[in-house]
């Protein structure tokens, strides 16, 4: 424990539109499991990616095992013994596990791949991490948990003594997560330093020896986990008590029922889901990854067609045939993946905003451009979208401004029922607060809002009620008063059993 495995000295990193890290200094002891935690946008992932050579710091020094390093690629980092396990997998789905594991140095004799040697090497790499897997299987056909095991094997087999895990459990089932925790314990026992990027309290306390808390890109504290309680940690992450977290809207007096879902079922996705949503109300839809949250939203928006159950809008049963029909019915959907589903990145903010309502903004299919422009300007001003002009392509804007444009789109479409799927994912802290304030304001004006978020504090503080899904079924509904991180998590993971411990 004399020389720190990783040491940050005044590390800073700036992205277009956001200061991701400013002047971060702390160290991680060798052989420890060290958590980096903080809210989304706090800079924890950026820090992890700097260690792994994916990002380069703009200022400050990074020391690995006492000597200063300048990684420019993940390969540099791996050469220095640092590997990373993350969601955006750097593997080829179409190749086998063995080929993926040995890709950088395929065993070959005079240009012909030695398949037997390749298989053996891959198997021994997997064995080192205690994983058993048919290495001839195609990588793309593995479950996500298995893919992570392969990634870890690649890092360890590549000689990594320090491994960064970036939100590794975010898409794992409970059983897969348990296997991962066991593997991390084994790695620790072998002297590997694990850096665990997460904001999931139970995991941090179960796995980690020490924790570094980041907030708004700044270092808040580094402590031994034994010296902390969960609420200390939350307090440090958000900088103020949870109750005032989002400065959220006062309990609006909810109006008429806008939407009721009765026994809705999409086979294989979710089953027998029922809940209701009133005007002026914000209802949270919580659940672990894969619980069926976004799938329910898709069905409400006409992207999936339920086999059973019904959707009742303003007292009238409807069959939502398509997104166009949903828009006509006054439903707006801010999708989970902004860049893939929310925006046409190559188009301007103006054109993105007007896209769903071009029909309304045109006469005989001829776009009334002055009107289009004034509508877009109205919502850009209202949402305080920061862009050089309405005609600037959205690709160049920050995440927060992009997300505001997706919101502007649905406000311009005058949707009375808004489904917000991960409304603040990848958005900087300032924009996040603005979006939260806006959501409250919209509800106060009578919109009915369904919020889906993986960030528990966000769902809890925004919602008047929370509907919790588990494995595609409603596990329970919590009122504002009943909803705490603990009660929601318990419902998400299965009542009674304390979560992940």
């Amino acid at each position, binding site marked *: 424990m004399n020389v720190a495995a990783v040491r940050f000295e005044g590390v800073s990193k700036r992205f*277009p539109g956001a200061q991701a890290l400013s002047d971060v200094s702390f160290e991680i002891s060798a052989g420890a499991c060290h958590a980096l935690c903080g809210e989304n946008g706090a800079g924890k992932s950026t820090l992890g990616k700097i260690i792994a050579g994916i990002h380069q710091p703009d200022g400050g020094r990074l020391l690995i095992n006492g000597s200063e390093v300048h990684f420019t690629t993940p390969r540099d980092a791996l050469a220095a013994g640092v590997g990373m396990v993350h969601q955006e997998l750097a593997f080829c789905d179409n190749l086998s596990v063995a080929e993926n594991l040995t890709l950088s140095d395929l065993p070959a004799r005079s240009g012909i791949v030695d398949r037997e040697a390749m298989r053996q090497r891959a198997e021994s790499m997997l064995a080192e991490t205690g994983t058993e897997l048919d290495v001839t299987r195609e990588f793309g056909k593995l479950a996500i948990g298995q893919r992570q095991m392969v990634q870890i094997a690649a890092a360890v087999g590549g000689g990594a003594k320090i491994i960064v895990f970036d939100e590794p459990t975010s898409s794992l089932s409970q059983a897969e997560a348990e296997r991962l925790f066991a593997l991390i314990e084994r790695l620790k026992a072998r002297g590997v330093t694990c850096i665990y990027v997460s904001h999931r309290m139970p995991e941090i306390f179960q796995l980690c020896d020490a924790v570094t808390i980041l907030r708004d890109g700044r270092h808040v504290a580094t402590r031994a986990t034994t010296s902390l309680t969960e609420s200390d940690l939350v307090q440090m992450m958000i900088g103020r008590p949870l109750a005032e977290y989002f400065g959220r809207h006062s309990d609006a007096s909810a109006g008429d029922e806008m939407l009721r879902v009765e026994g809705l079922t999409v086979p294989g996705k979710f089953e027998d889901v029922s809940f209701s949503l009133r005007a002026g109300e914000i209802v949270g839809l919580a659940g672990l990854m894969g619980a069926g949250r976004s799938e329910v939203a898709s069905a409400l928006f006409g*992207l999936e067609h339920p086999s059973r159950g019904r959707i009742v809008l303003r007292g009238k049963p409807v069959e939502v045939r398509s*997104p166009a029909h949903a828009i006509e019915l006054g439903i707006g*959907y801010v999708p989970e993946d902004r860049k893939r*589903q929310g925006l*046409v990145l190559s*188009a301007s903010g103006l054109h993105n905003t007007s896209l769903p309502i071009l029909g309304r903004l045109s006469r005989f*299919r001829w*776009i009334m451009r002055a009107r289009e422009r004034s509508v877009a300007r109205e919502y850009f001003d209202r949402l305080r979208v920061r862009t050089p002009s309405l005609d600037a392509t959205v690709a160049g804007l920050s995440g927060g401004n992009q997300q505001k444009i997706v919101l502007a789109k649905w406000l311009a479409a005058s949707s009375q029922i808004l489904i917000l799927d991960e409304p603040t994912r990848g958005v900087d802290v300032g924009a996040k607060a603005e979006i939260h304030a806006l959501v409250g304001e919209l509800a106060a004006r009578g919109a009915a809002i369904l919020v889906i978020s993986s960030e528990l504090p966000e769902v809890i503080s925004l919602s008047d009620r929370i509907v919790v899904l588990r494995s595609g079924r409603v596990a329970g509904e919590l009122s504002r008063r009943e909803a705490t991180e603990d009660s929601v998590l318990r419902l998400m993971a299965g009542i009674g059993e304390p979560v992940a411990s």
Partner: protein
Amino acid sequence: MTELTAERPSSRTADIVRRLLASQETGLVIVVTLLTIALIALAGSHLDRRTGLEVNNFWNPNTLVQTLTDASFFAIMAIGATMVIISGGIDLSVGSIYALAGVSMALVLRAMGPMGSGATAFVGIVVCVGIGLMCGLINGILVVGLRVHPFIITLGSMWVLRGFAFVISKAESILVPPSLTDVAKAPLGLGGGLYPVPMLVMLVLTVLGAIYLTRTVMGRHIFAFGGNLEASRFAGLSLGRIQIGVFAVSGLTAGISAFLGASFYGSASSGDAQGYELYVIASAVVGGASLIGGKGSAVGATLGALLIVLIRQSIRTLHFDQNYEWIVIGCAIIIAVVIDQWSTRMTARRLTQAAESARAAK
């Protein structure tokens, strides 16, 4: 704090100038102009036998109109094809649609026997444009209905349609009534064997295409579809209709071009416009269309066609070895697209910097 830079009236003209300078077409106009100037300078001159005046070998009405006429037949198709390309697809069948439409028209007119010139022109247009539109619709319906990539569908229809043209024409070249040639070669007040109709049709269709793409709902939908299919789905667009629409327009322009071409040259055969699909795609791409989708313009497509024809013309005018024509054109296409990508990257960088400074100013 500046939310959005308000468009102050004083900066408006500057804004328009800046946008003009930044636009793809401006670059092409400059290149086309420079090439024209170079051609005039290098072409040399000859004495006109009738008037005894010295005439530039390139800058004379005959050569200019001839060049524009050459360009118009595939520029017209490129306007349709560029819409397919903006939607992220590709249409390899336009040359075959041209051949089938032309041959069908010639056969129908032959079967109907002599008619008044107005009736002949009417039937000719209806058959040509109708066949073109129908082929395009079939392409679109197959792409959407079978969920097969447009490359494959149109590769298939490229052979199938030309095969039909071959079979129904029995591989013969079929004459079209002279009254049609009179339409396509109407002097419209110009004398001296100048035929402005094809180039005028090209101009009109370029303007219509540009309006369609930039000012109508359908045009905007095409850009969104090609820019991000998923986001378009989430915005409630009817994806199938958009995709069928672009192929229909592409077939339509091929039909129009076939009518003009067959009428202009006085005959139609199943071998017409062979290889045109590649000229057409090249025109669209040189004109700034991106094969990934989401980018392109009608004006660009026409300018692209013009540029390719100019390069071909310069080889003739400057008496270079004509055997090198393909090599030169191939290189020119690659160079044009590389320059385009490079300038796009520069523009993107400038935009990001502008966004940055806007943010810094708040």
